């Protein structure tokens, strides 16, 4: 049945999924070659990534066209909403793995290396790591990466926290604007949100430069460097993705794609943005403050 009679739109065939599979295949295979120093690895990775980007443009373009044609009813909209929600939940669990590593290292394995705790911890410390006294931040008993300074919370991280929190507010103002049907206002506040996100990423890059150039804090600086760069790095990647999503929504807003009732793309990007915001608060507390 067509959308008009039974309601749920079953999309027609599309080539984008298979294009995406080929793109990801080349990307992963190329990256594997690259990591093993095989010739051509970098090129294959880039070709794969380019195909994925083309796929994203093509697939989203198709969906936007269908949406603009009024093909989707409210039930389709609900499917999209649920999917975005559970996708964000899966992202939360992805971050949980890295937060879990941080907590485990700080609460359990770190003190055990220093000889604390029941069982064999004291003996392990005495025999294997004699003289190692555990204090966080730690680069381990072998002091991998040499002397370094931990990243303080004051300064760039605090500024970044304020930037992201403000961007949450501007994003919400934009949301209220579109709910009132005010396109211009929505675009303006979205522009501010994207700008704040971009500055955040820029300052994060500056912070990494500071860490490498002046603090001797590197990815290789033991468990502290590993967790610091892994958590902030993946978060920064997600902020970049979120900013791109919001920018796309902003351009679509300029083309008046949204209405007061119908603006799922905006909401999906906004949910994502709030998600990276909340993850950052977790990072600020557990990576920088404590």
């Amino acid at each position: 049945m067509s959308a008009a009679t039974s309601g749920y739109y079953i999309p027609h065939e599309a080539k984008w999924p298979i294009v995406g599979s080929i793109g990801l295949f080349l990307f992963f295979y190329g990256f594997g070659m690259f990591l093993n120093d095989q010739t051509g690895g970098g090129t294959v990775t880039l070709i794969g990534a380019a195909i994925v980007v083309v796929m994203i443009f093509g697939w989203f373009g198709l969906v936007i066209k269908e949406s603009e044609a009024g093909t989707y009813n409210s039930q389709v909209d609900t499917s999209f909403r649920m999917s975005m929600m559970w996708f964000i939940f899966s992202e939360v669990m992805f971050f949980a793995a890295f937060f879990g590593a941080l907590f485990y290292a700080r609460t359990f394995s770190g003190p055990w290396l220093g000889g604390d705790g029941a069982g064999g911890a004291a003996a392990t410390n005495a025999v294997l790591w004699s003289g190692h006294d555990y204090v966080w931040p730690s680069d381990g008993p072998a002091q991998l990466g040499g002397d370094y300074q931990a990243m303080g919370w004051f300064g760039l991280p605090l500024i970044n926290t304020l930037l992201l929190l403000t961007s949450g507010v501007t994003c919400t103002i934009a949301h209220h604007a579109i709910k009132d049907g005010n396109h211009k206002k929505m675009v303006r506040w979205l522009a501010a949100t994207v700008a704040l996100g971009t500055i955040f990423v820029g300052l994060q890059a500056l912070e990494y430069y500071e860490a490498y150039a002046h603090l001797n804090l590197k990815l290789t600086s033991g468990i502290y460097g590993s967790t610091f760069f892994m958590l902030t790095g993946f978060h920064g990647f997600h902020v970049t993705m979120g900013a791109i999503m919001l920018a796309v929504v902003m351009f679509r807003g300029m083309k008046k794609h949204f209405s007061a009732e119908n603006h799922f793309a905006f909401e999906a990007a906004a949910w994502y943005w709030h998600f990276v915001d909340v993850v950052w608060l977790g990072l600020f507390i557990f990576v920088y403050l404590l």
Partner: protein
Amino acid sequence: MSTAEAHHDDHDHHGPAPGFKRWLYTTNHKDIGTMYLLFSLIMFFVGGAMALVIRAELWTPGLQIVDPMFFNSMTTMHAIVMIFGVVMPAFVGLANWMIPMMLGAPDMALPRLNNWSFWIMPFAFTVMLSTLFMDSGGPAGGWTMYPPLTLQMGDSFAFVVFAIHFLGISSVMGSINIVATIFNMRAPGMTMMKMPLFVWTWLITAYLLIATIPVFAGAVTMLLTDRYFGTSFFSAAGGGDPVMYQHIFWFFGHPEVYILILPAFGIISSIIPTFARKPLFGYDSMVYATASIAFLSFIVWAHHMFTTGMPLAAELFFMFSTMMISVPTGVKVFNWVATMWRGSMTFETPMLFAVGFVVMFTIGGLSGLMLAITPADIQYHDTYFVVAHFHYVLVPGAIFSLMAATYYWMPKWTGNMYDEKLGKIHFWVSTIFVNLLFFPMHFVGLAGMPRRIPDYSLQFADWNAIASIGAFGFGFAQLIFVWVIIKCYRGGEKATDQVWEGADGLEWTVASPAPYHTFETAPEIK
């Protein structure tokens, strides 16, 4: 084709596209389900061939056929293929075929995403299996990929990690699709507590996947950076801990075990009432038991790690939480038996596999209970007893449920009845050989034979020879299965719409074979 109906959007209404494009571009849940099922059937023989290499090497003590390194990559790859390439895609294939029909939905909620979830699988397994042909050989550190051993792997390591990421994308998208379908696509009147148990078990399984696959992705990402970028997550010298990997891995790994069995529970709960001609005993308690098992699966992971030197409090907690799982599982087994109690039972092939499942899965469950006891596990750990345990729950468990499902729904898929006599032969040959294969592993395991070693002490020789006979018998018995499927696809006695006398549910109200599009208008559910 609907071209005659000009007012319709001609895209969303037509039959299958001609030629190979139908399979590449399809958005139809039945096409995608078929592809998933065929893919997993092919991979079943790939993984099975690897198992036969293992059993051929273990036929007698000593090293005879393969290099130990290759033996290790066979044990590793056999597990990866069977878990990610056979059982998971087969269940997703069944979900695709059956869930929309069981709910009275026109299709899955996100049909294009559905296509992508499938079409990642062949590409991801190309990455995975290609490692076997690399100079360094395939992954050989076990499918659990514990550091530091796994970090000493050759070039193939990066490819294995990326293949897992790739498969993870497929699993998460597939699960999100299933969740959205179940919550959003039910026909009017199909309340949650009216859904068939296969739908319920898949809903809960989908949550297990969404919650744990990303954790697995994170764990292997940390392995990757430890290997190639100099991080120290799993290196004590840098303040990390190799055991931390095990914690993160099993936080995924244990729910994964239930991902491999919960849909099987749903299948068995569909089949037994049909052939006992009685409604399922204790439907509500089945739902709650499934949810309880899923919840408990998140707080038992460290029972895989009793020998790593955890604090005593942790050993006790994980021992008791693990034992608690036997309560909801017991509820299920009790309900299946109670459903059969005083039923008018007949034993067509699906029922044979289902009853076989109940008996043999329970054997695997009981040996699991033995393994849950920490002091006992310290003896059993990494022996063939563990191998016997998880193969009992996975082969005459998960795999038997898949065969039961195939026989049960195949008339609906093809429109023809399968060959009942061949089906019964398949069941009995499989059942005899599978027990010959795995039961002796309990004995050699309790006597101390370690797993994942290509050679063994002379005292284990007899039982290993018997297990190898069982393995080859079971392996070749599956050719009967393939023959039954081909024969049924080609023709046979025409199936009625209801197919089975006692069958109940929306999927049995549509024609056999099920038309390309079903429930374009939602049915009324009273």
